Structures are given as structure tokens and as C-alpha cells.
């Protein structure tokens, strides 16, 4: 039925549009459509094409609120669990040095101006030494703990909070398990190493080390 109708339309169009270019063009389109609709297979193709074309149209016409929220997660990743405390290995104190209060008394008079020490000569500060000195991290009153830049005390077992003041992204990566080494179980309880377990706080850069033996070359394997 529709086929006959379109043919009829084509015929009428070709007569009426000989005057203007625009109408002539539209009649050509109509002729094409008629040709396309001529065989059953091409009719089927057209219906499929129209259907496929209509699908995205339908999606686009949907109200914005109903749009699938599959990109929402890309914009706002789920918040990672940031714990207040991490199971860490004991702080790596030098032998017989802790607690510091065995030598330092809270009542001691403290010279808070940066100066060269007469004790602890073995400690060479190679950690922003131009701008920092001992009491920027160590607490002058309670020697058995550290302090943040704002003066709040921090235990040696939570020293990562102190390090994270300057090394924020590193702390974030450490919390996520990307920076540093974790031991224990990949599926269960893990133990973190403190920053100071690998990096000496006074000279944090890794020292070069001797590599183990190179592999035997294949030609020397017997």
C-alpha cells in the first residue's frame, strides 16, 4: 500500500518541481526512496536503518535526569578508606638511645636557636638542612615524642603524620599501599613499615648498594 503511495508521490513530484531547483532535488530523493523500497530486502534494510537511527535519538530525547549514571563514578571515585592509625613496624631506633628522656629532662634549659650540637655527632642532617634542624621535628619539652609544625605532639609510632606534612602525595600513596613495602598477607592483615624504617629521617635518600652476582651467560652454562 505504502509502496504504491510513494510511487504516486514521485510521479506527482517530478511534474510539479521542474520549475525550482529545490523541489527538483526533493523529487529526486523521493525517487530514490521509491527505488529503495522496490524490493523486499531493501525495504527491510531501510526499516533496520531507520530503527538503528531512531535508537540514539530516543536516548538523546530522554530528560537529563534519567541519563545513565555510568560516568558518575569516573567523576567522583569512591572515597578510599583512610585509617587514623596504621599497623606499623616498631620505629627503628638506634641501640640504647630510646627513651630520650633518660638523658633529656623536661626541666632542662633548651637553646632553641639552631646550632651545632656537641652530642649526637653521628647524625648528619641531609634533609633540607638549610631550613630545618632538630627541634623542627623533635619536641623540646617531651623528648620521647615528635611534634607537627603546629606544635601538636606525635608519637614515634605515628611519625608518618609528621613526614606527610611536606610529603603529602607520598603519604597518600603510602596509605594506599603504593609507596613503601607492606608485609603480611595480600588478602588480609598487612603490616606497614614506617617512613623511617627505610629512609633515615636525617638523611632519607637511599644509599647505593652492591648488586648480587650477575647471571651466568648461556654460553658458559655447562
Amino acid at each position, binding site marked *: 500500500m505504502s509502496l504504491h503511495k510513494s510511487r504516486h508521490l514521485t510521479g506527482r513530484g517530478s511534474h510539479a518541481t521542474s520549475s525550482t531547483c529545490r523541489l527538483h532535488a526533493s523529487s529526486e530523493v523521493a525517487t530514490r526512496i521509491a527505488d529503495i523500497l522496490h524490493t523486499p530486502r531493501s525495504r527491510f534494510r531501510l526499516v533496520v536503518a531507520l530503527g538503528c537511527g531512531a535508537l540514539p535519538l530516543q536516548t538523546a530525547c530522554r530528560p537529563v535526569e534519567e541519563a545513565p549514571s555510568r560516568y558518575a563514578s569516573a567523576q567522583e571515585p569512591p572515597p578510599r578508606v583512610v585509617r587514623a592509625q596504621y599497623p606499623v613496624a616498631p620505629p627503628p631506633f638506634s641501640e640504647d638511645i630510646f627513651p630520650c628522656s633518660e638523658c633529656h629532662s623536661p626541666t632542662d634549659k633548651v637553646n632553641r636557636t639552631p646550632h651545632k650540637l656537641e652530642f649526637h655527632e653521628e647524625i648528619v642532617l641531609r634533609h633540607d638542612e638549610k631550613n630545618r634542624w632538630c627541634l623542627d621535628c623533635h619536641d623540646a619539652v617531651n623528648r620521647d615524642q615528635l611534634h607537627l609544625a603546629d606544635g601538636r605532639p606525635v608519637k614515634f609510632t605515628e611519625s608518618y603524620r609528621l613526614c606527610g606534612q611536606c610529603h603529602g602525595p607520598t603519604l597518600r600513596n603510602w596509605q594506599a599501599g603504593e609507596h*613503601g613495602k607492606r608485609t603480611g598477607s*595480600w588478602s588480609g592483615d598487612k603490616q606497614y613499615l614506617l617512613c623511617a624504617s627505610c629512609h633515615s629521617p636525617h638523611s632519607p635518600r637511599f644509599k647505593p648498594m652492591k648488586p648480587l*652476582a650477575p647471571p651466568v*651467560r648461556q654460553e658458559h652454562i655447562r
Partner: protein
Amino acid sequence: MRSLPVLPMPAPEPPTAARYSRREVVVMGLFALAATAAESGCAVDKRALDAFVQQHFRDLSPEELKQRLAQMEKRYTEEYGKNVRVSATPPIPGVLYGYALDLSRCIGCRKCVYACVDENNQSRDPQTHWITVLEMDKEHGVDLLRANAFYDHETVPAPGKFYMPVQCQQCDNPPCVKVCPVEATWREPDGIVVIDYDWCIGCRCCVTACPYGARHFNWTKPGLPADQVNPNTEYLGNRPRPRGVVEKCTFCIQRVRNGRYPACVEICPVGARKFGNLLDPEGEIRYIIENKRVFILKEELNTQPKFFYYYGL
């Protein structure tokens, strides 16, 4: 449309009442042989006979497997003079192992190489290493043609160099598995590509198929001193290998299926190696893939490794 010519097919053979499978025929033949040998007073190696008529690991019933493990434990315990345990731990459901290695941290100390040797009972002499640490120029980036595995410096890292350890990448689309003519190697549900050393025929097709040089062949009986044997072994992992079979890294299957980290992760002095479950959205591997510059080695080969290199800095 023209139809393709159809070749006339021979009529299917009528099923005979008494057909023997190939296996049964072989077993019968061997029994006959054994009987003859026993009668004639020859010593028959029962172990060799058992090994010859064994079944594929994946076709074993739980009882058969238990029996096989017990036999192995007995054999290794006799051979190495210590209580060697062989287990066949099944994969954990919902787990796909992933590995990440931070190239900006690795210093090329080779501690992982030797930790792997100790953990996985590799041959000491002749030497077999499952991990190869490549030294490359920072100037040229990752360029395998300029890589050197035999560097021997006083101290590492050497100036201007970086290090790239390469081991089995545990591909999701492993070429080594595809080429194996006897299905002696396969990918486990948790993503680990394993080898059944008792099924391997030593054709070394997989060695040539692997684009990462991760598979190693035992040309002789592995030189494994009894005092250095790691007695905690896995059937598809670090149990002592015979001569003439191929072996490779299994992410320390005997450790990771029991929740532990691989030996190379635990030994790394700079924390460059990361390991975890790829299916755990909170895990460190997923964090690295989502937040770091990650790449895989020889991506163009579509091997789909689960070993990710990245630059942490």
C-alpha cells in the same frame, strides 16, 4: 548463492563391542612387559611405570591426587633427607592476581632474583633464574635491544641507568599455553599460568613462544643441594623438577594461594614490587592502575599480561 561442493564422507565406523582406549592398550602392553620382565628376573622401575601411565593433573580424582601427592612427598623426602611437603592448593574464587613494578624505584640490586631461586627450588648449577633484571639507559627509555642483563657494578643504581626486572607476565592470553602440544601448561582460574612437570614432554615450543623469555628448560637434572631445598612446595609450583621439563615463575603459587606475598615482593629493599587481587577495587594494584602511569611489556602482541610496570615518581 552457490553452495560449496560437499565432499563425500566415508560412512562412520560401526561401534565394535570391545574397543579399547589408547590408554588401556598402553597399560595392558606395559603390564605384559612388566610380567615378562618380572619372570625373567629383571628389575622394573615401578615409579617409571606409574609415571608413564599417569593421568593429567586436571583429570585426577581427589583420591588419586592425594595418593600422587603422598608418593611425591615420600620420593622427595627420601631424596633430600628432609620432610618435603607437596600440596595442591586450589585457586581462591573471586581472585585474579595482579603484579605491579615501579620502574622509578627499582635499583637493580638483584635481591629478588636470588630470593626467587631460594623460594622456588631453582637449579643452582646449572644456573636457572626466573627473574632477569635488565639494565637500560635512561636516555633511551625502555629499549630491549639496548638492555643488558649482565651488568656488574660496584654499586647500583649506576648513573644514567634504570632497571627493569622481567619475569613471567602471567598473560591472560598466553602464547605459551597455545603452543603446548600436550596441554602440559594452562592458565588457572586465578590467572596463574602453571606447568605440570609430569606431563611436560620437553619440546620447548613454549620457550620459543614466550615473548618475555620467561620460560626455562632443564637441560640436565637441576642441581639442588639438599640443604637448600625449600620443603614447602606446590605440585604446580616449586616442587623439585626432573630433567627435561620447562619451568617458570608462578607468582610463588605456594605462597599466594595461602594469602602470602611472593618472595620477590617481600625481599625488595626499595618497595618497588606490588602484588594483590585485581578484582579488589580497594587493593593496591587497582590504586596503581587508576592513579599511575602504567604500561605493559610488548602490548602490541595482545598477550594481555597481568604484570604492570609503572612510574611511581
